[in-house]
C-alpha cells in the first residue's frame, strides 16, 4: 500500500491508500476521485488522466513511457511536469506521492 494524494485544481485534496501494482490512475478511478477521466481505461490512447507532478517527486517516480509525451501533446494545458497517471506505477517508493490535477481533462 502507498498513500497517494490527489489535489484538485480548486485545492481540494484527497488522500487514499493504493495497492502496489496498480497505477496512479487506477487508484483515482477506484476511489472515485473527481478530475481523472481515464476515457481509454489505461491504454495510453487518450490524455484524460493527465496530472502534474512537482519536481521533488518527478524524478522519484518511474520514467515516462515511450509515446507518453506524444499523448501529453494532446492533453489540456500540458506543462513540463505533466504525466499521464495511467503510466505512473504505485510502489512502496512512491508512498506519499502528491499529484496535481489540471483545470479539466477534456
Amino acid at each position: 500500500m502507498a498513500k497517494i494524494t490527489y489535489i484538485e485544481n480548486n485545492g481540494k485534496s484527497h488522500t487514499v491508500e493504493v495497492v502496489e501494482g496498480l497505477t496512479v490512475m487506477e487508484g483515482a478511478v477506484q476511489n472515485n476521485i473527481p478530475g481523472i477521466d481515464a476515457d481509454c481505461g489505461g491504454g495510453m490512447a487518450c490524455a484524460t488522466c493527465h496530472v502534474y507532478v512537482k519536481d521533488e517527486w518527478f524524478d522519484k517516480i518511474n520514467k515516462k513511457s515511450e509515446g507518453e509525451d506524444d499523448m501529453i501533446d494532446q492533453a489540456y494545458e500540458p506543462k513540463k511536469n505533466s504525466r499521464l497517471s495511467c503510466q505512473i506505477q504505485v510502489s512502496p517508493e512512491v508512498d506519499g506521492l502528491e499529484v496535481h490535477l489540471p483545470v479539466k481533462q477534456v
Partner: protein
Amino acid sequence: MIKTDALIVGAGPTGLFTAHQLKLIGLDCEIVDNLDKIGGQCIELYPDKPIYDIPAIPECTGEELTENLLNQLKPFNIKFHLSERVDELKQDKNKWRVKTNKGTEFETPNVIIAGGVGSFEPRKFSPIECEKFENKTILYSIKDKKIFYGKTVSIFGGGDSALDWALELSEKSKVNLIHRRDEFRAAQATVDKVKELSNAGKINLIVNSQLKTVNGNGKLEEIEVENDNKETKKLKSDYALGFFGLIMQLGPIANWGLNLDKKTIEVDTEKFETNQKGIYAVGDICNYPGKLKLILSGFHEGALAARACFKLARPNEKYKFEFTTSSKTIKNRLGVKSD
C-alpha cells in the same frame, strides 16, 4: 425524413456488429457517426495497435477489426451518415424523431446509442479569448487552404497534421510553427523537411512554447506565446490553427433525458434499453452491474438490443429465434445458398 427500423449512433465495432444483427433478423438500419470514417476508437485511437481478446481472432489491429466487421456487413446495404453528429432526439407518439447537426432527419421506433465515450471533437486552445475568433480566424481543421495565401498563419502542434500543413502552407503563406516541446510525433521525413525549411528561414519554428493569449479587433491580429522559462513573445498573425488531436465528448447525448452515471448511460441487461422506451445503449457507453468495457461485451449487448428493436419495429409479428447455420430465411438475407 428518412424512415428506418433502427438508427445506430456510432460506427465503432459495437455499432457495426449491431447493424449486422439487425439486418440478420430482417430489420433496416442506418448509422450516424461524427467521425469522417468508419471504425470509432479502433480507427481513430489505435488503428495499428494489436487487440488480443476478440473471440476466435488471436490477434488483429483496430484497422483489421474494422475491415473484418465491414466485410461481414457486405451482404447488406447499410447507409452510413459520416461527419454528422446526432443533436436532437424527440419523441413523437411511439416514434423517435432524430436530427443531426447537418440537418438530416430520421423517424424510427428504435435508437441504439453505440457512442463509445461520446463523439470525437478537436482539442481546442485553452485561453478563453480564443473562443471569439473560433471558426473564423482560429481554426481546428482546414476546409479551404486558399484563405491562407499571402497571410501569416500560426500553426500549433507536433503531429502529422500540424507539420504537414506547415509544409504545405509555407509555399504561399508566412508560417509560424509552435510546439510545446522540441520533439515531434510526426513522421521523421516530415520532421526533417520542417527543420530544413526552418534553417532556410521559410518556416518560423518556435519550440518549447505554447499559446498564452490572442489579440485582435473582430479578427485575429496578434498571438502571444510563452516558453518554458515564462518568456513571452508576440507574433503578428492573421490565423491560428490548432492541431492537438481529438478528444471524446459526450456532447448532446447528455440532453436526451437519459439516466446517466458519469459519462455512461444506465441500461437493463435484457434489452439494453435506457430509461426511455425504444432507446438503447450498447458498448462502452452503457453501464450496468458487472459491465466490462470490452469489444466482445459490445457485440453481446448489440445482439440483444437488436432483438428488442424487433418488437417495436414489427409490433404485429412475432420474433422467431433462428440459427445462421440452419435458417433458410437468414441465408436468403445473407445471399448464400441453402443446402
